[in-house]
């Protein structure tokens, strides 16, 4: 045993004398990471991506990205002699003839669904906790780019098998491109190598799917993690946890074990899904035929919102010099992604405008403490889910046994009405939670013990919070709406910056005008002075006049 250790030591020493990594390692190997379940959502994405890469390599060994027309001669009897492309035929071969091929296909597909879902969940976590604030705006942008690349990777992969769903999806992409004024027809012709569907598209999507997009994702994931490593992880406030430190467990040995273990769990869950639940049974959909569009045709979930927008969009079209401008496709397929992605990418700067805050933030916000941001986030989720429902309108009409037209009209109206309602409701809930926190800090926790005084008055006993419990509720900063100041100074000279300051103040008031502030020291002392929150039993502060 000791000889092995000595041997290993010699190898390590050999390497270290030449590249002197030990100093760097010593500093970094005990890097501290904080513990919270929501900090692992990004890891789910990372590990599922590794799983996709591994299973994808397996699939490339058999898959032929060729649109050459052949008659099927493989093992799946219900398709014998059916005309199809080589891409589809090799997908059938992978499913029915290659040992473990179907499992690998299912691992790849379930992995992709989990990858994108984990990225989305991770992004929502970062948004709701304010982890995108300075200095982490660059990582936010990288994250948004990764999400777009993930959708692109998923969509190109969905298109490769050349089954009926693949082709129908590509047809919609072609329709979207054609809707772009002036350059649409050229762009489509360029992508498909002539008239749709042509014989090129699969061979063109293939290098994008297996090389270009995964390469970009890998590079950006590396940058994402290096920046995270350099900037250190954010954490929740609490006793001993401040804006200037990171409290948690060291990378080695704790996080090596935890993250390593979690990697196997993520991979295990994906393989479990792949081994037990059938996904994308392309042999049931049939080979692609441009003349066939099946009922129940859907994209994978991450494209569902775009499909939904297309489905509920009214058929608006007008002509400019005899050229049609199809708003019914242009708006949902081309403009909508931009309408969603631009504010998403720019959100950190938008919020900075409201706060006017240029300091660094390493402490996370509890979602309730920034009610407007939380409200915006929930409104976006509602908007997105409504488009999801629209994307499955036929599915839901069948399941719920209601006319599909009802769903269309519900979405058309709901898409404008429900997100603002969700915003208001969420903001009110946040304010209510803040008010409860404030009451707890000032008067203690409700014990549920009701006392009857000798003169017959009922009151509930409040138990004071411990020092650390109270700190958990009050460590966040007080954020007051900013004041633009007077338009003119004492001498009647107009302030040249007044206009922009007033805009900033309005935004600030929108964000922080209603926030329930944590109690000040004076308020806290006054509350405690009245006997509230003290150790002895006390009466509740009813204005009964009998105290």
């Amino acid at each position, binding site marked *: 045993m000791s000889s092995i250790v000595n041997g290993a030591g010699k190898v390590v020493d050999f390497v270290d004398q030449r590249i002197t990594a030990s100093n760097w390692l010593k500093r970094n190997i005990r890097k501290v990471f904080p513990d919270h379940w929501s900090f692992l959502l990004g890891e789910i994405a990372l590990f599922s991506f590794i799983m996709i890469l591994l299973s994808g390599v397996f699939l490339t060994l058999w898959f032929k990205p060729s649109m050459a027309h052949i008659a099927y001669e493989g093992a799946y009897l219900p398709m014998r002699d059916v005309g199809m492309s080589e891409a589809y035929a090799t997908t059938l071969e992978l499913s029915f003839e290659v040992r473990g091929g179907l499992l690998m296909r299912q691992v790849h597909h379930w992995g992709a669904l989990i990858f994108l879902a984990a990225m989305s969940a991770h992004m929502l976590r970062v948004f709701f906790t304010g982890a995108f604030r300075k200095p982490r705006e660059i990582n936010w942008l990288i994250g948004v780019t990764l999400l777009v690349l993930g959708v692109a990777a998923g969509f190109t992969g969905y298109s490769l098998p050349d089954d009926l769903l693949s082709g129908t999806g590509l047809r919609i992409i072609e329709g979207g491109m054609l809707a772009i004024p002036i350059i649409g027809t050229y762009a489509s012709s360029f992508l498909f190598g002539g008239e749709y569907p042509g014989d090129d598209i699969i061979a063109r999507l293939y290098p994008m799917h297996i090389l270009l997009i995964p390469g970009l994702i890998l590079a950006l994931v590396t940058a994402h993690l290096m920046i995270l490593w350099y900037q250190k992880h954010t954490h929740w406030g609490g006793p001993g946890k401040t804006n200037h430190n990171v409290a948690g*467990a060291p990378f080695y040995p704790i996080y090596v074990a935890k993250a390593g273990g979690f990697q196997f*769990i993520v991979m295990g869950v994906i393989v479990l899904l792949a081994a037990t639940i059938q996904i994308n049974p392309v042999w049931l959909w049939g080979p692609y035929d441009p003349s066939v569009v099946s009922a129940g045709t859907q994209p994978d979930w991450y494209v569902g919102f775009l499909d939904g927008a297309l489905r509920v969009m009214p058929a608006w079209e007008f002509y400019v010099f005899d050229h049609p401008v199809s708003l019914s496709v242009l708006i949902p397929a081309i403009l909508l992604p931009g309408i969603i992605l631009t504010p998403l990418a720019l959100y950190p700067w938008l919020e900075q405008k409201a706060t006017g805050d240029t300091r660094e933030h390493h402490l996370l916000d509890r979602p309730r403490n920034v009610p407007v941001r939380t409200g915006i986030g929930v409104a976006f989720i509602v908007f997105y889910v409504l488009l999801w429902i629209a994307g499955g309108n036929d599915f839901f*009409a*069948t399941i719920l046994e209601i006319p599909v037209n009802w769903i269309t009209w519900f979405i058309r109206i709901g898409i404008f009405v429900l997100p603002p309602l969700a915003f208001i409701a969420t903001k009110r809930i946040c304010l209510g939670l803040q008010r409860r926190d404030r009451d707890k800090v000032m008067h203690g926790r409700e014990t549920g013990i009701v006392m009857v005084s000798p003169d017959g008055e009922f009151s509930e006993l409040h138990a004071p919070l411990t020092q650390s419990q109270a700190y958990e509720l009050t460590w966040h900063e007080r954020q007051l709406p900013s004041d633009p100041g007077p338009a003119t100074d004492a001498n009647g000279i107009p302030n040249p910056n007044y206009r922009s300051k007033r805009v900033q103040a309005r935004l600030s008031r929108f964000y922080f005008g209603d926030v329930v502030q944590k109690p000040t020291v004076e308020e806290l002392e006054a509350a405690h002075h009245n006997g509230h929150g003290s150790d002895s039993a006390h009466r509740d502060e009813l204005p009964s006049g009998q105290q």
Partner: protein
Amino acid sequence: MPRSLPGRSRGSWIGRLLSSRRRHPLAAIAVLVAVLFTAGGAYAALAPSTTQNVQAASSTQIEEGRQLFAVGCSSCHGLNGEGQVQEDGEVLGPSLIGVGAASVDFQVGTGRMPLAAPSAQAERKPPSYNQRQIDSLSAFVASLAPGPAEPDEEWLDTSQGNVARGGELFRTNCSQCHNTTGQGGALTMGQFAPNLTGVEPKHIYEAMITGPQAMPVFNDNTVTPEDKRDIIAFLESVQNEPDPGGLAIGRAGPVAEGLWAWLVGIGLLIGMATWIVTRSSKA
């Protein structure tokens, strides 16, 4: 007394079981199962058999059909199947002159007629008439004017069908509404293409030649009887095909898959993440 013992003990064994176990939590379920078996068995034994009567329509059969029609159908379709239109123009029942025996056999045989209630589309339900009565009704309606007849047995024999060709035909002609595996789908204003799982070959054939409700007619010039047989063979093959990938989750495609990925996949992984961070981490 010794002589009566074995008999008594046998009787008391059942009696003891019944009395001592009558408050057992599963007793109610056991009774329910027993009653259901009895009722189901009695129904199977007593219900009229549905063996097909293939003899040519005789005048007595037409007469029997006329009487059944007058009782069960004429209130909407008129005494002579001429249909009824209300004064405000609302069609109470369409004219049945020339719809043919196939149409009657499909509509009544799948329980769509008589209608339970006016709605966007007639629903499939257990038929109200037995096959002999349906044949009489068909004979009566066919006697009004010539129309599509019920298919010959030859075209319903799926063992002679070509599944691969049927699949191509089904995808080209039918999947737009019924989905590639015949799962059905939504149409406009509450109409729908029904799920074809478990539908009798004869009824699928009749639907193609008569075009019930929202469905178009696929006559023998567009889709030949051989084509129809292939389509039926394909549907039968798809229904009986195992799912090599595991749970089929309704064979419903990406919507169901997305729900599973979010609810089960991400749900399970978040549960695991929560478990991992609660493990002690002493460095």
